[in-house]
Every structure is written in C-alpha cells, then in structure tokens.
C-alpha cells in the first residue's frame, strides 16, 4: 500500500531528470563563452511541477501529510521546499549562475531520496493533528531556506576567492557580486528563522501539553535548539553590523551543517524518541 506505483515512480524520476538537466544547463552557462540568460529555469519549473503532483498523490495515498511517514517522504518534501525557495530567489534576482550551484545540491539530496526509497511508514495517526502538521511543514520550509542560504554562502566564498586571486576570470564575471550573495544569504535566513521559531514553539507546546517525559533531552530537540540559537546569533550579529560578508557566508555554511545534523543525523546516530507518540 505504501510502495510507489509506476506512475509515482515516473513522476519522481521525471522531476529528478529535469533537476539534473537544470544543473547541467546551469553549469554549462558558467563555463560557456556567451553570456546567455537563464535557460535552466523553465526546466527546473517543470521538474517542480512534477514533484508537486507526486507529493499530492502520496498525500492522498497515505491519507496524511507525507513527511510524517519517514525519511523518504521527508527528504522529498525538503527538496521541494529548497526548489520553492530557490525559485522565489531566482524570480527576484537576475543571477543566471544560481542554478549551477543550487541544482547540484538538489541532485545530491535526491541521492538520499533514492537510498531511503522503501522507508515509508503508514501508521502514525498523531500526524493528523493540525499542530503537528504545522510543526513539520514550517520546519521543512525553514530547512529549505537554510539550504539556499548555504548555497549563497558557498558562492560568496568562491567569488571572493576569484577577486582575491587578482585575475580576471570568466567565473568571476558569471557569478553575482559579493554584496548580492551576502544579502541573499542573510535574507534567506531572515525568512527561515521565524519559520523555525514557530516550528520549535509548536513542537515544545505540544510535547509539554502531552506530558511527554524528558522531551527536552531528546537529541533532535537539543540539536534543533542549538541550531536555533546559532541562527539567532547570526541574525543579531548581522543586525548589529558586526559581520563582514565573509562571516555571513561562514555562518550560512555552518548553519546548514547544523540543519543536516538536526534532521538527518540525530535520528541515524543517536536514536531518541522524536517524533513522539
């Protein structure tokens, strides 16, 4: 009942192929002689549509919000949020080099998807509750923004390296200016932080109200709170204008490490009871 049927497999594979194509187009732009527009976007958009349909179908099939049903569905949804945030950024910034950096990360995440393709869990009625849905959706949306901030941070460091190398390179001319990249990273975090806050507050309230024992000691919860504190410090330092562009990039990259750890690794490495029944 939970295995993917043929149509779903086709949709999933289809979206991967389009994302992969977007990555290739983005990379070829980066290294090509001619300064073309952003040909990758229509392709990515189409992949996004396919993936949206896929998630919709799974939702109907499983009867509830898919990410609650295990790693596979959760990763698919995380990728979906990353693309959503990326498309929003791309719509507002004429930066044709974005696909070259965002899409390879997405393709790698998709690798994780295929590794966990049979890990769908069909029970868990707790996810029928509105609060728990919201907790998860906002958490994933926040992760999506943090992934994008991470990519912006990476691009910043690459561009900075080009500039300090004191040579005119094609890569330098293809990448956006430093100010733009730092700004995008900051704004992505600015978007994600309230979402993360809301998610943690909801989760804490729910756990407290339910009287779950020792929920504060759960590794995932601790890790999430550390991540929250990290991003809070980032935003505070940035608002106080203590951070140079390079430090913004470092924060964005490290923060993503925190996200990865919180989401993926605590479950794998440390066990713990989250999600709580």
């Amino acid at each position, binding site marked *: 009942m939970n295995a993917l049927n043929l149509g779903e497999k086709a949709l999933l594979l289809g979206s991967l192929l389009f994302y992969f194509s977007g990555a290739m187009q983005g990379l070829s732009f980066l290294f090509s002689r001619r300064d073309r527009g952003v040909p990758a976007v229509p392709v990515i958009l189409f992949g996004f549509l396919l993936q949206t349909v896929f998630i919709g179908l799974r939702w109907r099939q499983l009867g509830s919000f898919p990410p609650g049903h295990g790693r596979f569905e959760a990763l698919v949804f995380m990728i979906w949020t990353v693309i959503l945030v990326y498309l929003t950024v791309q719509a507002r910034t004429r930066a044709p080099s974005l696909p070259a950096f965002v899409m390879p990360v997405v393709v790698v995440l998709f690798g994780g998807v295929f590794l966990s393709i049979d890990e769908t869990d069909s029970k868990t009625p707790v996810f029928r509750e509105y609060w728990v849905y919201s907790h998860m959706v906002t958490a994933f949306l926040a992760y999506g923004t943090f992934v994008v901030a991470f990519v912006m941070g990476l691009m910043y460091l690459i*561009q900075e390296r*080009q*500039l*300090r190398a*004191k*040579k*005119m390179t094609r890569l*330098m*001319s293809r*990448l*956006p*200016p*430093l*100010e*733009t990249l730092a*700004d995008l990273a900051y704004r992505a975090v600015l978007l994600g932080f309230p979402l993360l806050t809301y998610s943690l507050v909801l989760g804490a309230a729910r756990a407290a109200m339910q009287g779950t024992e020792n929920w504060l000691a759960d590794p995932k919860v601790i890790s999430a709170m550390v991540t929250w504190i990290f991003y809070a410090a980032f935003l505070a330092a940035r608002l106080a*204008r*203590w*951070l*140079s*562009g*390079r*430090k913004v990039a470092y924060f964005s990259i490290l923060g993503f490490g925190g996200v990865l750890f919180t989401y993926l690794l605590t479950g794998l490495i440390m066990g713990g009871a989250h999600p709580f029944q």
Partner: protein
Amino acid sequence: MIETAEDVRSVTLALVGLSHHRTPLEIRERLALAGDQLTAELRRLSGRFPGTELVLLSTCNRTEAYLFSQQTVDPVELLGEMAGGRQINIAHLSDQLYQHDGPAAVRHLFRVCSGLDSMILGETQILGQVKTAYLAANQAGTTGKVLHALFQESFRAGKLVRNQTRISEGRVSFGSVALTFAQKIFSDLRGKTALILGAGETAELVVEHLLGAGLENLLIANRSAERAAELVRKHGGEWLPLEAIAKHLHRPDVLIGSTASDRPLIHAAAMREALARRGERPMLMLDLAVPRDIHPDVGTLDPVFLYDLDDLQQMVADGLGRREAEVAKAEALVKDHCDRFDLALSEMDLEPLIASLHRRGAVIRTQELDELFARQPFDEVQRRQIEKATQRIVSQLLHDPVEEIKEAAKDGNSYFAFQFFRRLFRLRDGENR
C-alpha cells in the same frame, strides 16, 4: 586616356592616411574633423575632385581618405588639399603617410574596423567612428556604388571578427579593470562613494569609469586646494584636506590612493576602526601610488579588497596578452572577408566592363560602315550581307577576351586583371559605368 601605370592606379580604389603609428598627436589633432565641418570638407573636396567617391575617416588617432575614381586622382594630392585647409603641408609628412590600392585598401579598412590597427588592440570605439564617417559622406553625397559596398562589408567584417574571436574581450585599461572589480563587489554603484587621495591623472580616469557606471558621491583629499577644486568642478564632489582623512575613512566604498607621499598614509589599525564604523561593509581599494599610499597590511582585513599598481598592470597585461593571442585568427578572418569582397566587387564590375567593350566594338563598326556606305553605293542585299559579316567579325574578335575576363572574375584575384583589361582596351569613364 589611360597611358601609364599611374593612370591604372588612379582608376582604382585607394586609401591614403596618417595614424597614431607614425604621426604625433599634435598633427593628428589638427586634422581631426567632425560634424558639419566634416560634411563641408567632403563637399569641398568633392568639388575639387569631381567624379570621385570619397569617405573621410577622421578621429583623434587617424585621418584617412578612402576614394574611388575614374579620373586620374592622386590620393596624396587629395589628402594634401584637405591638410592644406588645416594649415598643414602634406609634403613635410611624406614619411608618415601610408597608401594602399585596391585589395590592400580593402584589407586595411577591414583591419581597422576589426580593431587590429587601433592603439589599443581590439577596441570597439573605432567601428562607431567608421560608421559616422560613412554616414557623413552619405549626407554630403560623396559616396557611390563602390564605397557603399566597401563600407557596408567592412562593418560586417568588424562585427564578425569581434564575435568570432576574443579580440575585444577582457579588460585592458586600469579604469575598466577597476570598474569590473567594483561591479563584482558591490551590487549597485549608485549611492556609493569614492575617495581619491591626491589627484593623479590615472586616478581621475579610474574615477571617471566609476562615475560613468553610476557611482554618485566623490570625495577628494588633496594638499592642494586648486587641483582638488579643478576635479570638483569637473566631476562634482567634496574636498577634504589630506591631513584630516582619518576622520573620513569610514565614508568611502572605493578608495583610490594617488598621492606623491613617500610613506603609506593609511594603516591597518585606523582602517580596522573605520571598517567597524561602516558595519564591516566591503571596501575596494586601489593603490595607484608609487611608493604606495596604503599599507599592504590593510589588504589582509576581512572586508577590504586591495589592489596595487603591480596588480592592475598585471591584469591589463594579461588582458592585452589574451587579445594578442587572437590576432592570428582575426587576421585570417579579415583575409577571408577580403577575398569574398573582391569577388563581389568583380561581379559588380564585370557586366559593365563587358558591355562597354561591346559598345566600343559597336561604335567602331557603325562608324566604319557609315563611312563605307557613304562612299560606295551598295544595294539592300549587299548592305545586309556586309552588316552581318562585320557584326560577326566584331563578335568573334571580342568573344575570347570576354570569356577570359569572365573566367578571371570567378577567381579571387581578379582586381588587377580587371584593371589591366581596362588598360588593354583603353576603356574609360562613361564607357564602363
């Protein structure tokens, strides 16, 4: 009548000129013409040398006359006429002049349009300048069939060479290098501030590039109020006394060092404070001074991007080197274009040439027949027979030369074949166009 090699030369496409290669700026400046002056001069020269197609290319780096004429026109004489009008005696410049005929003139123009003959290899301004010259000649009514074709093709050649090679790519001046860095550090130059320490010419050029790209605020820190005042008058902005810059270091986004100071004026400690005051926003620093105005330690600070004269010179040299690597490819493309143009030109020439030869034949035949029929009474039948026979003679005599010239037209190098053909049959103006 065409009697000498000089005559052949003059019924031709020719070019004569002076350029930055051998002629100093003072003379080039005096020869430079633009706008109404140019149109007037074209008309004047056209009056002095009637029946001549003429385009004058007159920029700060070159003055060239392109002409096509049926008469015996000495290109040097024409240029001398133009120079005389500007109080320059062309005879004194004979070792600086260059002259090209026919295919060589075509090649020269194509090279010029491609940026291969420019002071800065691959520069793009020249194409616009050639277009302006062509349009001015159109307006003055001094262009004709040949120069139309030549100049149209030269624009295509120039565009093609720039598209298919990297001859125009890269940054080859301090100003454009600086601007490129600024545009890759800052998302928008509008609203940004630049500070010049001192007032060197290079610094001014660099600032002009930045101002041209939208930078709005200029600060000039100088010991001399007059030199600073001159800059402020030219570009707007604010003057600061050099001794007081420490208080203003947090203001600029771009800082240019260009004083004659023998010691650095800006050190890391002061800069650290200024950067904190700026909220750690990035700063582009260009140290054009020797000895340097900005201590190298400043370049290690996080938000600072510091480039000194060596760095900039290296980048300009790299850019020029990359352009130079494209020269062989560009020259090959130019040659290709020349060959194709020559072919097109000969096709243009061919029909009128053959027609004029036939006309010559017809004229001679008619003249002789008229004389014969006037002297001797022939009856109708005899007349017709004589007419037909003479027609056949003329046709057969002309058949071989015509076939040969048609063959020559198919081959790329027909230009001088055509000239010789004209000379051989002493075909002249009015007869062949």
